[in-house]
């Protein structure tokens, strides 16, 4: 796999925070970081990864342009929860409120909500940044596991970040049918059921699988430029449009202007997605 490709150079750079990589990265979530890194690198955008972990200096997080946090095991989430309360919780809230883009998968997504009710009924408080809550109906109910697909807001996957949008309000509704490129594939594995409140929109509409709760066909949430989703897979390399949306949003916020991203050859990504959609018998 030798390389002859000349890496371009641009004046742009991004600092990407990877929140608790040693504790919250259970289901191949590192793939999201790899996708962000490569898709910036291939376009000559300089990337610096900033691992934020237990007892990291809080200034580190405050200076980041893009946020990522993955899922974790229960025991590790407890360690993270304790550490957040030492100050990172306030910084994260500020970043999200001032429209710093971010991706929060599974446990991290639940964590942004108001609370998580565990299988035994005990309540774990969340950060309360997203108007969502999560409940695990008990150990006798099945985990929601399997390949999934959902139709995403066209704006997030159109390949351009420059649609105007009021904060927190997506201009377009999610279509009932899948278009050419607004379908997202992934793999979900969660015990908790998440329910959306009024101040948050769903990320997409479930085509196959369970999504937030297996009841209302919603999957994930979007608030300002923060995305929460149950989709492992990992989501970004399999759905590069989403990765590009995060990158261009981050550039837009940082440089305060629209920056169009150089298109990349995503034929392999498309083939991989096509193979999975066929298997899931989703026609589009």
């Amino acid at each position, binding site marked *: *796999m*030798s*390389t*002859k*490709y000349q*890496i371009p150079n641009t004046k742009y750079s991004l600092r990407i925070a990877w929140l608790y990589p*040693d*504790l919250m*990265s*259970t*289901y*191949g*979530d*590192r*793939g999201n970081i*790899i*996708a962000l890194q*490569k898709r910036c*690198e*291939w376009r000559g955008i300089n990337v610096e990864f900033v691992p934020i972990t*237990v007892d990291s200096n809080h200034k580190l997080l405050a200076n980041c342009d893009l946020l990522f946090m993955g899922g974790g*095991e*229960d*025991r*590790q989430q*407890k*360690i993270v929860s304790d550490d957040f309360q030492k100050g990172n919780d306030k910084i994260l809230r500020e970043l999200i409120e001032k429209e710093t883009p971010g991706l929060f998968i599974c446990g991290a997504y639940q964590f942004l909500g108001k609370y998580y009710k565990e299988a035994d009924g005990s309540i774990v408080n969340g950060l309360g940044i997203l108007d969502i809550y999560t409940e695990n109906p008990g150990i006798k109910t099945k985990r929601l*596991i*399997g*390949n999934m697909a959902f139709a995403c807001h066209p704006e997030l996957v159109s390949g351009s970040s420059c649609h105007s949008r009021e904060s927190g309000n997506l201009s377009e509704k999610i279509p009932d049918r899948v278009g050419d490129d607004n379908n997202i594939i992934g*793999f979900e*594995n969660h015990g908790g059921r998440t329910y959306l409140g009024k101040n948050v929109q769903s990320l997409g509409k479930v085509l196959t699988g369970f999504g937030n709760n297996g009841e209302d066909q919603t999957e994930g949430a979007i608030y300002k430029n923060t995305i929460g989703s149950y989709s*492992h*897979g*990992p989501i970004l*390399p*399999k759905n590069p449009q989403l990765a590009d949306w995060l990158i261009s949003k981050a550039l837009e916020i940082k440089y305060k202007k629209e920056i169009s991203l150089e298109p*990349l*050859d995503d034929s*392999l*990504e498309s*083939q*991989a997605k096509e*193979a999975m959609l066929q298997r899931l018998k989703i026609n589009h």
Partner: protein
Amino acid sequence: MNPSIILFGKLFSQISQLFNFGNGSTWPGHIALKLNRNFIQDILKNSQTKIILIAGTNGKTTTSLLLKTILEENGQKVIHNSSGANLLNGLASALLLNSNAAGKITADYAIFEVDENTLPIVLKEIDPQYVVLLNLFRDQLDRYGEVASVAAKWTQSLLHEETIRLILNADDPQVAFIGQQLFNHKNVKYFGLNEKGRKEFEHAVDSIYCPRCGNKLSYSAIYYSHLGDWHCEKCELKRPQLALDEINFTPLSGLYNKYNTLAAILTAKELEIPENTIESALKKFKPAFGRQEVVEYNGKKIQILLTKNPAGFNQTLQTIKSLGAKNIIIALNDGIADGTDVSWIWDIDTEMLNDFARNITVTGDRAYDMGLRLKYSTSSLKIENCKLKIEPNLNIAIDTALQAVSQSETLYILPTYTAMLDIRKILGGKKIL
């Protein structure tokens, strides 16, 4: 009741082999357990056979086979369950097929490899002399759940089994802690390594936080994944004392096989097998199918290395690198036995392949996913520049990959579990443990 079940089961097994039904290694036991829920207990009550259970995420089959080879070299009769038939029905099948008409097992030892989730269930049915616990890595999270919860279940199930002797991997904090929680320490023996380790962790680590207090562990040496010489600076829990850390000879390549060999030798030593017997057995050892076994196909050499989770995959990549591998097939399936979630491939350090691979073919049900993983392992944007082929059909993948292999070279195939079974059919090999 058992003698008639056994007769029926044996007949069924022969018919199923004759017509190639598959699953011949679990169905007789499945039926036997349906007819008599206490089938296993009843058959063992009649027999003098000593039982050794082997559990862990990686290395069960190889460790079982190593120990079996040693015991047989010592003149003992040993039975064991087929690789993969490691649930209760697989154990029942092995007992059924190896019993005589009177419903008795005449073997001296039964070595059973046991699925992680099945160990607590098996311990309710069987009273083993030894339990060998190899390691716990993230594996098939859709099926097994999280590493810490498996460790907790094992501890619970062993807590009151004071007569069982434990052989544990001291270098795996979760596994070692199981022994450290049990009160009867004289029945616990540990194996581990004492050599120069690496300084940094791979990405795929699961248990680097103290199993007792949750503080981050310190390591004076890291061997692979989260295995190493560890201690907790907060609560002072540390790697227990090793009963065995050195071996003169390993029949298989790779650090992970060093651990398997240590586990087998320590168990053999506890069973008072003489050292020279152990050594001569190891020299005769032949690997199980897919566990570094070399086969010849169309006049060319193929070596198959089962890879089913990030820790094992990283070890396999290190191993084939040291063997000088250039031609590689990676076969990724997502059947139940493989784990239906293939996210784990993003936890493997496939970037390593850039150092040594010349031709890589990816194949299997999820060939495109593996193709993507490799694309994102290079700094190259254009896939045509890499000698990477994506061919979902396993047959075609093997044929085309072999064309690029010279007579003096070896084609290395890294399959997940069900892909390995498919490869066995293609290569026409009947040899499987």
